[in-house]
């Protein structure tokens, strides 16, 4: 199970590369969305492996807040104020 956690953590690194280099702003937003979901999954795996349910609360709050942020940024860029 720790191998799964390592694979999920390693799959965040190319997303950070896309987040820094992405051609348009929507690529960066997409990479942020994927990275936030993976961070929430890694927190859930870590909560189960270390037997600490507090990390699961952190994962739930992190997923909800990243969803609100992504939807708000997408609605903001839909009106034409986004960076190209």
């Amino acid at each position, binding site marked *: *199970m720790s191998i799964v956690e390592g694979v999920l953590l390693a799959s965040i690194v*190319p997303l950070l590369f896309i987040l820094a280099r992405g051609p348009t702003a*929507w690529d960066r*937003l997409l990479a942020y969305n994927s990275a936030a979901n993976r961070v929430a999954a890694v927190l859930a795996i870590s909560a189960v492996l270390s037997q600490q349910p507090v990390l699961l609360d952190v994962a*739930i709050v992190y997923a909800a807040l990243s969803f609100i942020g992504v*939807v708000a940024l997408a609605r903001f860029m839909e009106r034409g104020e986004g960076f190209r």
Partner: protein
Amino acid sequence: MIGTALAGCGALLVAIGTFGIVRFRDVYSRLQASGVSDNAGLTVVLLGLILYEGWAPIDWMLLFLLVLMLATNPIATHSIAKSAFVQRHTGEDSS
């Protein structure tokens, strides 16, 4: 055992999806790879985590996180896609 196998399959799906996100060129292709890999892969990983733990009080919170991800992830993907589409077809310069 079966939980570890399910989580391994989910990690494989997530790794393939990350490869797709890096390799594809267009925003919509990247959205497709991202949406499919995140929904399927992380759902399978969390299901494997529930089966790995057995009967425990932590299962309900894992199930809540799974339902939250299943409810919010398609909305976020659709919102990004609609934002890119509308901005491309109504903006001044078409990049």
